[in-house]
Structure formats: structure tokens, C-alpha cells
């Protein structure tokens, strides 16, 4: 049990740091502070806290208890209690301020360069995108919501889409009802469950998607743009194309949203 727990903790530790140099910087920072700055009161307290916290993280029995409290999958969040950013910056600053004043800006630039080289920057790694809406959801989601709302003309409606689109629909517009949310949360049972699997399948079966969407009475169906045969499959289940937004087609069930009313809309 002990070996397995330590292995798990190490696994979380490695995932937390990725392929960066920061775990090594943290260890070097702790050693530097321990050897050269242990006489400073504030440093002693920080070191004591960090070492105790690392012990709690890696020691199998405390790890087991903490995992029972917070859940095994998110055990890595305990590492948020280790102030690694502050400790590394503390050690680097202590090192720099101990040098001659003409060297200090040079060392600061060198350390900043080392941090840049050993880490990864957000914009160049593709974490940020330009969008054309203030809510900062994918533009395609905003477009789908606006199209459906315009067609519905103030009436409540049920819309179904894949995982990517449905994750942001209610962030943009909470008046849109969905049969299920992210990872099927909130209601993927029975026909809705089948619909969830079909609409998120790696290879789409439009006939099945349309069949289940019609069973659930989804007023609007959002799918990747279908070919001619797939369009016929959708139309066989009374879905009519409303428009295209980005790589998605939006289909409406019947001639208007009032024709099909799902009990999920909460209307008597």
C-alpha cells in the first residue's frame, strides 16, 4: 500500500510540473534558503511550512486521508499549498541582492531568461484566441444561439449540440434549454443518453441522431455540416435546415418551435 501511494503521489507530482525546470528550481531554491538563509526568521518559517507540506503530500498515510477528503483524482491540488512561485522568487531575489549592485540587473535578466526558457508561455502555446463577442465564448456558439433565438421569436426551446458547443451555450445565453450538459451531466437518461452518445460519437450516424433528437423533441439540432445523404436522413425525421454557422448546421424540428414541445421545457 505504501509503495503504491508513493508512486501515485509521484505521478501527480510529475503531472503537476510537466516537462518544466520548475521542480528542480524549487528544490534548488529550498536548499539555497536552507543552507544560506536559515538564520533569517521569516525564511525559517517558510522553509518549515514548505517541508511539512511536502511531507504531508508524499507520506502515504496522510496522502490516503487527504485523498479520501478531496477525492483521488484531484489530489494534485494539494500542491497548491506549496507556494512554489513565491519560494523560487524568494530564493532568486535573495541570491541577487547578495551580489554587487552592477551585477544585479544582469542576474535578474539571466534568471528571467532561464524562467522563460524552462517554462512555457500562454499565448504562443495557443491558450488564447481572438473572438468577436464580449462574452468570450467561441464565435460559432454565439452565432448558433442568435440564429436559434431569432427563429424561436421569444418562445422557449430545447437545443441539442455536441460537447464542444453545448459547454458554452448557457454561458452565452441561459434562456436556451439543453437536454444534457457537459459529459452528459444534468440529465442524460433514456433516449437523452442515447442522443448524447450519438451526437458525440467519433463517426456520426445522422439517422440515429435525428431519431433520438426527435424522440426527445429537441426543437433545434446542431450538427457538423452534413452531406446530401445525411441531410435526407435528418429531413426524414422532420428536421429542416435553418442555417449554417461556422462548421455547424442548425436544424429546426418541424415548421416552428410551437409544433413540438418537450416536457423538459417545464410547460404545463
Amino acid at each position, binding site marked *: 500500500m505504501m509503495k503504491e501511494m508513493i508512486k501515485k503521489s509521484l505521478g501527480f507530482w510529475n503531472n503537476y510540473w510537466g516537462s518544466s525546470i520548475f521542480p528542480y528550481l524549487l528544490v534548488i531554491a529550498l536548499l539555497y534558503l536552507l543552507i544560506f538563509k536559515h538564520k533569517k526568521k521569516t525564511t525559517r518559517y517558510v522553509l518549515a511550512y514548505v517541508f511539512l507540506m511536502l511531507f504531508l503530500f508524499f507520506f502515504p498515510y496522510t496522502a490516503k486521508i487527504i485523498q479520501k*477528503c478531496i477525492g483521488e483524482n484531484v489530489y494534485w491540488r494539494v500542491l497548491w499549498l506549496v507556494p512554489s512561485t*513565491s519560494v523560487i*522568487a524568494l530564493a532568486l531575489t535573495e541570491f*541577487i541582492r547578495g551580489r554587487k549592485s552592477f551585477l544585479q540587473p544582469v542576474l535578474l535578466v539571466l534568471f528571467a531568461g532561464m*524562467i522563460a526558457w524552462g517554462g512555457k508561455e500562454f499565448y504562443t502555446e495557443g491558450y488564447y484566441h481572438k473572438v468577436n463577442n464580449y462574452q*468570450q465564448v467561441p464565435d460559432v456558439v454565439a452565432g448558433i444561439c442568435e440564429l436559434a433565438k431569432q427563429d424561436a421569436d421569444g418562445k422557449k426551446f430545447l437545443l441539442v449540440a455536441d460537447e464542444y458547443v453545448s459547454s458554452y451555450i448557457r454561458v452565452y445565453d441561459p434562456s436556451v434549454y439543453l437536454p444534457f450538459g457537459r459529459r452528459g451531466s444534468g440529465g442524460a437518461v433514456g433516449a437523452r443518453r442515447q442522443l448524447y452518445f450519438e451526437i458525440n460519437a467519433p463517426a456520426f450516424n445522422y439517422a440515429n441522431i435525428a431519431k433520438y433528437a426527435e424522440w426527445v423533441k429537441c426543437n433545434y439540432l446542431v450538427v457538423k455540416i452534413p452531406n446530401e445523404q445525411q441531410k435526407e436522413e435528418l429531413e426524414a425525421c422532420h428536421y429542416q435546415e435553418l442555417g449554417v454557422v461556422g462548421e455547424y448546421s442548425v436544424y429546426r424540428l418541424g415548421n416552428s418551435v410551437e409544433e413540438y414541445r418537450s416536457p423538459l421545457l417545464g410547460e404545463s
Partner: protein
Amino acid sequence: MEMAMKGILAVFWLILVPVAVGRLPFVKRRQPLLTERFVSGYLILFSIMEVLTLPMTFLKMPLHVLVISYGSIALILALTGVFVTVKAKDTIRLSGIFDREKIYFWIALILILAQMAMCVLLAHMDADDAFYVAQATSGVQTDTIFEIIPYTGQKYYGIASRYILSPFPVFLAVVSQLSAGLHPAIMAHMIFPAVFLPVVYSVQYLLGKKWFPGDKRAQGMYLFLTACICSFSAYSVYNSGSFQMIRIWQGKALLASAFLPLLLYICQSVLMEKKTEYPWVLLAMADLSCCLLSSMGIILGTMMLGVFLLLCLVIHRDWRAFLKGIICCIPSLVLGVFYILIV
């Protein structure tokens, strides 16, 4: 014009009110720094939000009651803070602001402003918003608190899981309503980064002041290095720097990047000093604020506080401080028991 008005109200509720409220813990003490006022203000406001929201959630009260209650209390406290400021004749200290010693501070500030610009003007898509932000938009749309499943728009049957104990999405909904109905997604994605990144670096600034007292150059270098490390934290999606840079509007990100370091700072200042630098109530509020932000905060905040209490006992043999610290933990211990029972 309408958007500008909403923006001004957002600035009022998220910057001016916390700075005004943050004067109150220092009534019988020295004039606080602006950064101390800012973070103390949030400790007080988040604690108030937690205390108001939990009973209103269980009593199924409408959101507008919470908005009015929170807004009124925040305004009264802010006015009191302004009164204290005027009575104490606080001064704005501008001399020495452009000294050579502060050059590193200004370089750090440029980097921090660049981070803020990136976070505000560009979008990061995070699917966790399907719960956290949609919880706020659903609450605003239906005037309810945790009664609507954010994923679908249906009603919850029973308790809305353990997230109910950490209603930070409700704070988002409340400030959106106080800002003349600014869309919660706009508030979260554009306003919150511009407000909470300064909170993060205010905490780091205070840590720098504590660790390098009187050395402005070192304080500036420290702040610059922390900003650098955060800027290059994209090596994994798990670390606190990554959470800070790509989803600071979510409670758990604010916990990891700002409030756990703030709790660390306050623990050092209250538990590890012979003469406490801040009132004990701030320690309790820091713990309670962590509970508001995330269900993780209930456990992690208590863990940090527990470790510092142990250190306080071992290093200082201070039983009084230890007992006071335990009292500060009581709200999170109670919530922790609820959390474990619900999970």
C-alpha cells in the same frame, strides 16, 4: 454608453468598495497600504458573501434579496471605511514613487499590465465555465440561487451537490446585477481578470515587503520574478500559475493564485510574529474566503492553517495563539464536515 455605465459600476463594486471597506480592520492601527486595503476589503466582502449566501440558498430565497442585502451591507461598510479614512486623515504618499530604487517595481508593473491586457482582450475557452459561469447566468436569468442546473436549465431536485458550500458563482451573479445587469460572462471573462490579477500581485507585493523589509529594490525584483514565473507557467494545466493566467474568474483559480498565498501571508503575520501585525479576525476571514471560492478551499485552507498552528505551537509554544487559531478555523471545520458528508 450603456456598456460604459455598467463598466463604471463594475469598477465601483469591485475596486472602490473593497478599497474603502479594507480600511476597517486598521481602525486602531497604522494607516494601511493600498494593497493591504484592497486585499483586506476582499476578505471582508467574501466573508459577508459566504455568510449571506449559505442560509439564503437553503431557504430558497430569490437572488435579488441577496443582491440587495450584499449591496447594502457593502455600501454601509464602504461608507464607514471612507469615514474612518477621513477621520484618521490618511494621506496618499506619492513622494519617492519614481525613485531609482523602485525601477524593478515599475518593470514588474509593465509585465503585470501586459498579463492583464492578454487576459482581458483575448479569450481562453474553458469548459468548466459550463458549470461555474453558467451557474451565474442561470441565477441571474431566473432570479434564483442554486436552484437551476446550469448545464440544462432544469430545476435541481434536492441539494445542488457540494458546490453549494462554495458559492463563488453566486458572487459573480450578484456583482453582475449590481453593475446594472452586466452579463455575467462579460463580468467573468473581461472584468474579473482586470480586478483579480491585481489582487494576486498585491498579495505577492505584501509577501515581498515581509520578506525584504525596507529593501525596495529587492521587493521590486521579487515582484518581477513572480510575474515572470506566472507568465511562463503554461507547462502544465495543473499548477497555480496556469490557473491564474487562463481562468482566474473561476473560484478555484482565485483560491490557488491569490487566496492561498494570502492565507500564507496572514498566517505568518498573525501566528508567527510576537506582536500580531493584523487583527485575528482577518485570519478567520481569510479562511472563510477560501471556503467561498471553492470546495477545495474548505479543505486546503484548513490544512494550511492547521500546519501553521502546529508550527506556532512547536516554535513559539504559544497556546493562546493556538487556541485563537482553532477558533478562526471553526467556520471551515463546520463546512468541512458538511462537505465530507455530502461528498
